[in-house]
């Protein structure tokens, strides 16, 4: 083989490889299933199923004027319910665990790209004691989709999962599936909600920890409230509808056994006091809705409830029920305290023979 053979090989290798790589890059940028660069192409739907990969891109590039921000319990809302009830165009900003810092990170992206009429904010009690630092990097999220560095997007452009799975999925759901864009990130369709599910998943510790002092989580509480209220203050033109979701009575039983009931109720009270001081905040709580939280048929596990409850909550926001106001917030907390007591002393009893006991509890 002479020298020219190898020269020719090198030239062809560069041409073939570059052509193939460019085809891959062009295909990914054209269809952009994570919506990093543009909205869905005409004729294709906004298929949103991977929140870690798609939330940031969709918040940057979609047209909307309202955000539904929350943890996994907020994933089963249909955007259409909010759009119709509030005459808005909503998008979801979802983060598992719903830590305040994480959700506010997503809100910042939304505020940077759109003017928002409403923020529908799901405030999980656990979010008030979460780390005040964002957790995206820590939990292995694809950070190349979260920054503005185009160079590291190579991990998106040259990615066979995107090419062979995500793009065909986007096309199939758009053209032959019956994908409802309002049901973004919805997971309820694959789950069952009933007492067998929730009781099957709950492993109860037999011991009961000493009740922690109310101010046990004060530092984290203050930091998380500061993060949230900073956004509320920065955007007085935006209405924040903040709501506390209804965790099941099993969650309250677990909270009691961990010695956290008093501290969590104190956190809620402090959060209510703080948030109610802002004109652009409307507060709702579903936490002490006895009918919902004591009916275990509504749940998949201690905190994840069925989409029917999501629908009911959205209706309440529209109708203005379940409101927490400066006048009633203390009595609401006291009601919750009584209900929490009733749960551990009375309401849980009929289920005790169906609850598994944690044999490793020390």
């Amino acid at each position: 083989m002479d020298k020219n053979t190898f020269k020719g090989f090198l030239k062809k290798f560069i041409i073939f490889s570059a052509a193939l790589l460019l085809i891959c890059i062009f295909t990914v940028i054209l269809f952009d299933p994570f919506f990093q660069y543009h909205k869905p192409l005409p004729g294709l739907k906004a298929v949103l199923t991977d929140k870690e990969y798609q939330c940031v891109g969709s918040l940057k590039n979609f047209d909307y004027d309202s955000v539904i921000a929350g943890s996994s319990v907020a994933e089963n809302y249909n955007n259409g319910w909010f759009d119709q009830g509030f005459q808005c165009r909503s998008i979801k900003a979802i983060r598992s665990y719903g830590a305040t810092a994480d959700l506010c990170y997503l809100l910042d992206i939304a505020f940077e790209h759109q003017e928002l009429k409403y923020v529908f904010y799901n405030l999980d009690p656990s979010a008030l004691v979460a780390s005040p630092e964002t957790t995206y990097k820590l939990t292995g999220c694809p950070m190349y989709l979260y920054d503005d560095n185009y160079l590291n997007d190579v991990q998106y452009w040259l990615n066979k999962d995107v090419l062979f799975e995500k793009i065909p999925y986007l096309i199939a759901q758009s053209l032959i599936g019956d994908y409802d864009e309002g049901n973004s990130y919805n997971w309820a369709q694959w789950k069952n909600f009933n007492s067998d599910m929730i009781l099957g998943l709950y492993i109860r510790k037999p011991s009961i920890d000493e009740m922690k002092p109310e101010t046990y989580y004060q530092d984290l509480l203050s930091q998380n409230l500061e993060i949230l209220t900073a956004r509320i203050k920065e955007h007085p033109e935006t209405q924040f509808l903040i709501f506390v979701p209804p965790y099941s009575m099993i969650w309250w039983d677990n909270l009691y056994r961990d010695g956290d009931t008093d501290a969590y109720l104190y956190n809620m009270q402090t959060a209510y006091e703080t948030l109610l001081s802002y004109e652009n905040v409307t507060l709702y709580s579903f936490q002490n809705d006895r009918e919902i939280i004591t009916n275990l048929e509504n749940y998949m596990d201690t905190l994840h409830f069925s989409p029917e409850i999501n629908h009911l909550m959205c209706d309440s926001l529209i109708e203005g029920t379940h409101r927490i106001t400066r006048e009633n917030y203390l009595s609401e907390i006291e009601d919750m305290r009584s209900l929490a007591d009733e749960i551990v002393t009375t309401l849980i009893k009929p289920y005790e023979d169906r609850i598994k006991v944690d044999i490793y509890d020390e």
Partner: protein
Amino acid sequence: MLFNSYLFIFIFLPLALIGWYGMNHFKAYELSKLFLAAMSLWFYGYFNPYYLAVILVSIACNYLLSFLFQFSHTKWMDRVFLLTGILFNLGLLFYFKYYDFFFENVNALFGTGFTMKNIVLPLGISFFTFQQLSFIIDRCTRKAKHYSFINYVTFVTFFPQLIAGPIVLYKEMMPQFEDLQNRKFQTENFAKGIALFTIGLGKKVLLADVLALPVNYGFEQTAFLDTPSTLLVILAYTFEIYFDFSGYSDMAMGLGKMFNIELPVNFNSPYKACSVKELWQRWHITLSRFFIQYVYIPLGGSRKGKGRTLFNIFIVFFLSGIWHGANWTYVAWGTMQGLLVVWDNLGIIGVRGNHDKTPAKFYIPRWLGWFFTFSFFNLSLYFFRSDSMTNAFQMFRNIFAFKNTGYLLKIAAKLDIPEFYLIKQAINFTMPDLLPYAYLGVFFLLLLISAIIITRKNALQIVSEHPFNTRLCLYVSIIFVWSVISFSQVSTFIYFNF
């Protein structure tokens, strides 16, 4: 940094090549070596800068010893320096690799309470330690001369071989770095280098990493595996480890060629071997070469009678086992290899066509020799891959339980690869009950492809014998791009419980 990463292929390698050939073009020969060493240290320290401190201390100490040998004019001083070198290098290796293992066993044996250090093992420490150890030993016998510091650092850190070998010797590397002809861009070497690198990349990314999916799951579930799944998991692992390691060696050799540096061959179709002895002449050749040269021969080699020869052979394999990792499983694996090679050397049963020095009493056909060799190596890998001896023995128990619980379907279902996505969806819509069997089909197909590849020409043979025509170029380009798009995955985040 990994060879199979975007950073390496699109940034690091082009920069290293342009810098190297650019500086040499302007006759900045010393600067080009310094540049190459600096790039290699970037490559090495990319994941953990702490690794850099370890390798630099190791290089500095060994270089100092090499320097001191210049002033040694008595055997006594030579011995002191040699002993210092051996103790330093093996001590470093012991501390980083074997400390916890050793004291764990001391604690278990004597009831002592040494605390474990959980030391992070610096990448490639076994490779660069042996590489430098060989240099120090040869300095003692004056087979090696003292080199300039830049030359020495370039030799030790040359990034293609730094992390996973092959274990290179100064005498095959130094002259190549010194030869100014090698500093000029050579189209033939570069084209061959690209082909070799890409074949290795494909072996690693498209085969080894995919085979690892069912294998890893299988070895996490040892207690649940039935007989067929236990047998097929180890068969898949046998292919995985070969494609992984030989793929890496091919990439290293390919990269070497791009720099006009010939690295030694490390694999020569080992699964074509018809005896365990032959397999070890074809598998991790540079490690065997090191042990032969620096352990087997100093122990007396074959010069001290049959019994001592067999003992020396056994020692080499025993040490090779420990070299692979700090666990009793590696000791068991090395012992098993040692016993099998000793058996081959006894000359009781030979393989027809193998030209052994001493004739055997009985001969078996080659296919039978191949079958036994491949099967024994397969079985020995249960020790190599298991986390503990308990798990390894569990795997053997699974084989002899003669049970079929259908677990193989679960193992095969781990092959949920994007290449299979459209077919999977089609089956899901039309015949969902058949989906587990479709995964099984993918598993068998992968094993079949692997079996075909190991019985054909190896990467080096393809590169040296195959015409570099458009067809080869197209294949190489497709493998390259397919591998590159496999570097990144979309993960599933499953944590509903907040």
